[in-house]
């Protein structure tokens, strides 16, 4: 019933439903997301390694580059090394892209979707920087790694970090997330540039957002990078971190980069964890 509401929401807005392959030839480079590999065609003597998609992002961006226009997809995604009460190796994802939307327009629409699903509580937006000022008392965009380490140590938290983004995330999880329960539907936006992932960076902040429902991360969205060069640079950053952590390395997805010879149109996209989204709707 709620899935039908989601579909209706997008059909009413002329967003096209698509299905992309779940078995892909290149694993994701994200340092903290592990793909599940599968071997196929061994019986044919043509053994090949494929990977279950960890999100349909790359395949959907191929469609966007080919001129698909606004698209959405509801599918299962698979991730290795997930554990905890809210993390699973397989979960449902709603992913969608809107042409000519900036990050704020997309956040507003996601808020409307949450309301359309029956959660009529107020939607608030808070920048990452404002959340840190309010709940931690530090200017997160201006504080360097060494100063953050001293701050973490003074609160009895680990200061064993090589990358500032990992320590920023620890402080966010420890100090900010629990406070977000006061704001049942809360968007956090404009992340530090070190946490840009695949979002556009402007004036030292990444146009990336997350949605928190009752303090639980439910969605992650970007004002999307457009050029192949930008994607190559961001993928390489993740590979460098993988190398430093001695995690499995993979070749860059050259086919995807080639498909971006015509860059992505200006657009914003978001991935929403369906179980986490609907769990809150059923309360």
């Amino acid at each position, binding site marked *: 019933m709620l899935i039908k509401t989601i579909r209706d929401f997008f059909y009413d807005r002329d967003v096209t439903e698509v299905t992309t392959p779940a078995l892909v030839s290149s694993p994701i480079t994200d340092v903290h997301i592990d793909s599940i590999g599968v071997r196929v065609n061994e019986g044919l003597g043509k053994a090949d390694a494929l990977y279950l998609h960890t999100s349909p992002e790359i395949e959907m961006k191929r469609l966007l580059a080919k001129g698909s226009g606004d698209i959405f997809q509801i599918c299962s995604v698979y991730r290795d090394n997930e554990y905890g009460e*809210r993390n699973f190796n397989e979960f449902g994802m709603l992913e969608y892209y809107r042409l000519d939307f900036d990050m704020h327009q997309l956040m507003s629409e996601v808020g409307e979707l949450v309301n359309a699903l029956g959660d009529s509580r107020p939607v608030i937006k808070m920048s990452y920087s404002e959340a840190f000022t309010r709940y931690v008392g530090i200017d997160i965009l201006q504080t360097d790694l060494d100063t953050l380490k001293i701050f973490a140590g003074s609160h009895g938290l*680990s200061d064993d970090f090589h990358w500032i983004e990992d320590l920023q995330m620890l402080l966010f999880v*420890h100090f900010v997330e629990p406070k977000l329960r006061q704001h049942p539907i809360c968007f956090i936006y404009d992340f530090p540039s070190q946490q840009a992932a695949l979002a556009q960076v402007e004036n030292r902040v990444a146009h990336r957002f997350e949605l928190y429902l009752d303090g639980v991360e439910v969605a992650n969205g970007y004002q999307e990078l457009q050029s192949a060069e930008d994607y190559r640079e961001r993928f390489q950053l993740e590979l460098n971190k993988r190398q430093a952590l001695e995690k499995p390395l993979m070749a860059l997805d050259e086919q995807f980069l080639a498909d971006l010879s015509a860059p992505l149109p200006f657009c914003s996209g978001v991935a929403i964890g369906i179980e986490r989204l609907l769990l809150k709707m059923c309360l």
Partner: protein
Amino acid sequence: MAHYGTSQFKNGLKLMLEGNPCSIVNNEIVKPGKGQAFNRVKFKDLITGKTLEKTFKSGESLEGADVMELNMQYLYNDGESWHFMDPDSYDQYALDETAMSGAINYLVEQDSCVVTLWNNNPISVTPPNHVVLEVVDTDPGLKGDTAGTGGKPATMNTGVVVQVPLFIAIGEKVKVDTRTNEYAGRA
């Protein structure tokens, strides 16, 4: 003492934190979509009784705390210390006023309590959920009063003051819930 990694964290696990033995009250795994996994953990400090919240990178480890909870019999108070005995080993333990904390209000000689030992030293005591205490002082009640029409303060033989029904008189024995300090009936 063994070390415990975050993947072994569970409620009730006793760990050393900032020099004090602590017990895990709540262990929440948080994995940001784009980040590494963390454990957001609530602890109870077994010495101070305070609650602490810490967040660990998954993979971190902490030293275990050598903490045991034993049923013991309360023997006597010598004015400075409260003495308990392990009925299995006959080992005796003396607790000071800090370790006794609120339990002082409910201890009756011969009663069985749970004593928490850290490195074999007693650090706290938990009285039974219900104890029988004797009323040593209270205003006389009116004849004909029944339970449920309010109450009055009564001082027990341990010194604690409990709200009791009006019909309870000096010298009577009453059952008291030690968790809420409430009257739970005539004994």
